[in-house]
């Protein structure tokens, strides 16, 4: 498959009152069409910064982002973003939030009825058609995040960027959302970059897991190929040898090679190898 997105030798330096802060150094990653990439690393290492550079919300100090052989310099709907805290507009209903995006992206390409159908189709896709006319403060966190995903999908992006989309949700809702996302991905086969701090989530959803070293001057430490067949089932995989090998590979990277000494004590770190899978 062809390379759709090339993150090419990106450095990011933030000017701060205390002098320049090098957040990223030499981040280099090529992504194929239809690939699902997870970006994992300790909090504060620079995952969001990478995503924001791809979205062009930040401009890289060195290097650049090439989408379909063309460098991108401005944000655009072909790189739709699902933000961590849903970022729905609170004065609009679920339908209107998606409508704002659809109207902007397809203003000359779709008729009014086509738009309406397309918005409703996307609401159905995330199982939110019943919350069509609800405002964000009337629905739960998981529902908001679903609508955020529907809004991003409705832009028909070349590449979908998700910044810890399920980070703020409780474990059960999160599992539910992951299943939904797998189901959608099965249908649409989007190219996705998803930031996560959940090891299980990364292994369950991804084709490749990109592990980042700790900052400052963070970069890509290792890349892990996940060759588990689709569709994946979390219960079946729990006993799977390959799944557990991948899982412990990620945990080893995070808790041994890139251990955050000051944050996570040693005892807890070895314990979490077996039990927990949350990093941040």
């Amino acid at each position: 498959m062809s390379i759709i997105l090339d993150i090419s030798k990106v450095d990011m330096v933030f000017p701060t009152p205390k002098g320049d802060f090098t957040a990223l150094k030499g981040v280099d990653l090529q992504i194929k069409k239809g690939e699902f990439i997870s970006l994992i690393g300790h909090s504060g290492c620079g995952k969001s910064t990478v995503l924001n550079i791809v979205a062009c919300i930040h401009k890289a100090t060195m290097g650049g982002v090439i989408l379909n052989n063309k460098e991108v310099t401005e944000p655009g709907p072909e790189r739709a973003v699902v933000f961590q805290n849903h970022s729905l507009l609170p004065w609009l209903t679920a339908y209107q939030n998606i409508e704002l995006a659809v109207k902007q992206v397809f203003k000359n390409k779709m008729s009014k009825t086509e738009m309406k159908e397309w918005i409703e189709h996307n609401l159905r896709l995330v199982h939110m058609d019943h919350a069509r006319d609800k405002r964000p403060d009337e629905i739960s966190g998981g529902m908001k995040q679903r609508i955020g995903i529907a809004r991003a999908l409705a832009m028909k992006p070349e590449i979908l960027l998700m910044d810890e989309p399920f980070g703020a949700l409780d474990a059960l809702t999160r599992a539910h959302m992951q299943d939904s996302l797998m189901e959608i991905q099965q249908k649409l086969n989007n190219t996705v970059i998803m930031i996560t701090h959940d090891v299980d989530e990364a292994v369950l959803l991804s084709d490749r897991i990109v592990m980042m070293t700790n900052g400052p001057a963070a970069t890509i430490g290792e890349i892990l190929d996940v060759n588990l067949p689709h569709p994946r089932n979390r219960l079946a995989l729990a006993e799977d040898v390959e799944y557990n090998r991948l899982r412990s590979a990620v945990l080893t990277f995070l808790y041994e090679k890139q251990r955050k000494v000051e944050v996570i004590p040693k005892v807890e770190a070895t314990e979490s190898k077996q039990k927990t899978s949350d990093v941040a």
Partner: protein
Amino acid sequence: MTALMSKKIVGIAPMNRNKMIMSFIAEKTQALILPLVGICCFMLLWSFTASSIDTSLGKFPGPSAVATQVVNLIDEHNAERNKEDAFYIRQDQRNEMRQAKDPSYQAKVRAYTGKETFLDQIVTSVVTVLSGFLLAAVIAIPLGIAIGLSKNLNTAINPIIQIFKPVSPLAWLPLVTMVVSAVYVSPEPMFAKSFITSLITVTLCSIWPMVINTSFGVVSMNQDWVNVSQVLSLPKLVHIQKIVLPASIPAIFTGMRMSLGIAWMVLIAAEMLAQNPGLGKFVWDEFQNGSSQSLSRIMTAVFVIGLIGYLLDLAMLQLQRALSWDKSSAQR
């Protein structure tokens, strides 16, 4: 047996249920009774203090004197209206008679020039304050948004705002009066000069809180919403209309309520000083008049001014509840 039954139905503790009902009643009565108690205490204190203050115009007016004046002022208003009606009837009769005698006679219609009553002054003041406030809002909200969006514009304009914001209406008034007299010259003016003067003074004083709050609302807008707008590549105008304006609505309303309060205070002062029609002029005229009733009429005006100020604020709050998406900011 029945006692046992009822005990079962009500649950474990009838004592608790009674307590709940009691506390519910207590809550409701508190909301009603406490303000009444407050008002009664104030009335007592007021009439007691009033009776012990002697002025050159007689005793300081107490509650009963004010109550009498309320009736008086309404009666005077009705009397004046009757006089006006009578004037027009007489004029019509006269004209008809002359036309009957001489068909070529051109009827003369003159307007009644009676004294403005207290109620007329109230209407004048309310119309003026709302006009001045609306003019201020029409200027302040776009300006506030522009300042909020552009750091450079903010840096350029901020010193001017900070200097003009604390200026008292009394300082503006002479300037405004002179400028209006010089500039607003037309053979058939649509509005009275005094109205324009009051209106501009109100606008000049009430514009700043709206500018400052609007720009604050824009600046402190959630960065996520800006990012959404960027990802969608919304054009500038759509961005302002669909993101910036709704996002800053709560702050805009905060500013509007502050401004309307200031506008009302400023207007009364301006009317007093400039002798422009309105409640301020009523107060000043009564003060100059110096009759035995003057003080109680002024006191009545004070209450009316306060009441209208309160009602204006309530109306604004109601508007905010209806229009703002952020219900929590529209509580009180």
